[in-house]
């Protein structure tokens, strides 16, 4: 982990740096698994390794591969970094040791989630129950963040009339494309299926709105890479995405408002169903759907925008 990070910083060749960053994300996903953070590992792998690497590649295509040798004095940043590091290390001395069950972290708020969430919300995956219901408002904020990013990128590099067919990025050697074409034709439906599975399995095992959204988007991104932006635009037009992204946020917010109108506080799923637990199920389902909608459409929209911008250059 540490070695990959150091190498990422050292290397001049940005392409290598991006690839290593992808590897770094995968490694950190592994580490999260070791630390029992399954959902986080899943998201880190999908979002960290997948989408950000693709976006960085697009940026590199636009901005050239190599970095100039640094001309500025290197000791000042080193000094600042060491000082911050020392402050942090000094700060950790009084922290409770890692993994000890007696830590204050496990005494105060968390036990209730573990003990009561089974009864109150009735789904095994505690992380999803906390994510969607206990701290559902955070997730609404987070969906809004995703939407803001999509909106911001659209404002910056969107709204372009595509001149000429956007040549697929990897279309350098046509015959090599054949294998890719066949394999991807086979792969895409499987990925889509897996995405749906993850979406609805989120309550039982690791998974949920974010991961499902990214996977669904990645299926279409593979299609975009192999068959070029124009074919993919025929399947999923950009305008549809620009409608779906806000819709996701509205769906999420709407579920909360529904709870409000039916008498509970905002984002209170109890009144939604006949029984409180049933209401929670329905609420979480709707909320996860909203998240998946926004995340998938935004990620795909990002790739469209970057592809169009890069092709234009």
């Amino acid at each position, binding site marked *: 982990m540490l070695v990959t*990070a150091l190498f990422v*910083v050292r290397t001049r060749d*940005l392409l290598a*740096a*991006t690839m290593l*960053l992808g590897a*770094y994300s995968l490694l*950190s996903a592994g580490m*999260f698994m070791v*630390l*029992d*953070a399954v*959902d*986080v590992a899943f*998201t*880190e792998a999908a*979002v*960290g390794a997948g*989408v*950000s690497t693709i*976006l*960085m590649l*697009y*940026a*590199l295509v*636009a*901005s050239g591969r190599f970095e100039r040798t*640094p001309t*500025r004095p*290197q000791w000042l*940043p080193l000094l600042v*970094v060491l000082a911050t*590091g020392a402050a942090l*290390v000094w700060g*950790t*001395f*009084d922290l409770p*040791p*890692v*993994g*000890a*069950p007696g830590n204050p972290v496990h005494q105060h708020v*968390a036990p209730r*989630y573990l003990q009561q*969430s*089974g009864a109150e919300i009735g789904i*095994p*995956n505690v*992380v999803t129950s*906390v994510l969607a219901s206990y*701290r559902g408002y*955070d997730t609404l904020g*987070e969906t809004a*963040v995703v939407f803001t990013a999509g909106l*911001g*990128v659209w404002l*910056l*590099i969107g709204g372009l009339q595509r001149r000429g067919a956007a040549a697929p990025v990897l279309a350098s050697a046509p015959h090599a494309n054949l294998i890719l074409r066949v394999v991807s034709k086979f792969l895409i439906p499987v990925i889509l299926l897996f995405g749906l599975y993850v979406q609805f399995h989120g309550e039982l095992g690791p998974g949920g709105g974010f991961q499902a959204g990214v996977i669904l988007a990645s299926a279409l991104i593979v299609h975009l890479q192999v068959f070029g932006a124009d074919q993919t635009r025929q399947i999923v037009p950009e305008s549809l995405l620009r409608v779906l992204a806000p819709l996701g946020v509205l769906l999420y917010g709407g579920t909360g408002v529904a709870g409000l109108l039916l008498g509970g506080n905002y984002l209170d799923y109890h009144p939604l169903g006949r029984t409180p637990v049933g209401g929670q199920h329905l609420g979480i389902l709707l909320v996860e759907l909203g998240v998946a909608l926004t995340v998938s459409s935004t990620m795909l929209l*990002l790739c469209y925008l*970057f592809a169009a911008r890069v092709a234009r250059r």
Partner: protein
Amino acid sequence: MSSLGLYNYWIVIALMMVGLYAVIARGHLVKKLIGLTLFQTAVFFLYISMGFVHGGAAPILSEGVAVYSNPLPHVLILTAIVVGVATTALGLALVVRIREAYGSVDEDELERMDSDA
């Protein structure tokens, strides 16, 4: 206060500092964003290692398992990861626009162009 238990944090801090160094030292805009991602991922580790319990299982309720690790940091980090990616995406969009407007993505060159513009 067995310091052994804290080595986990120190590695995390080392990772953070590598990320921070990249952000501050390197002039290339994309390298800065990469450094930022490193820095944020390291912070995620800080949260997750806080929530870890020896011998505890993943926070998915299943029979016969009594001790679970803490789900709250996981929820926080799920949000933080998505926020991190959102910021990176916006940063990359800016890089593309800057590249088109200035023709270069190196901070020193940009400053020179700005100062005489």
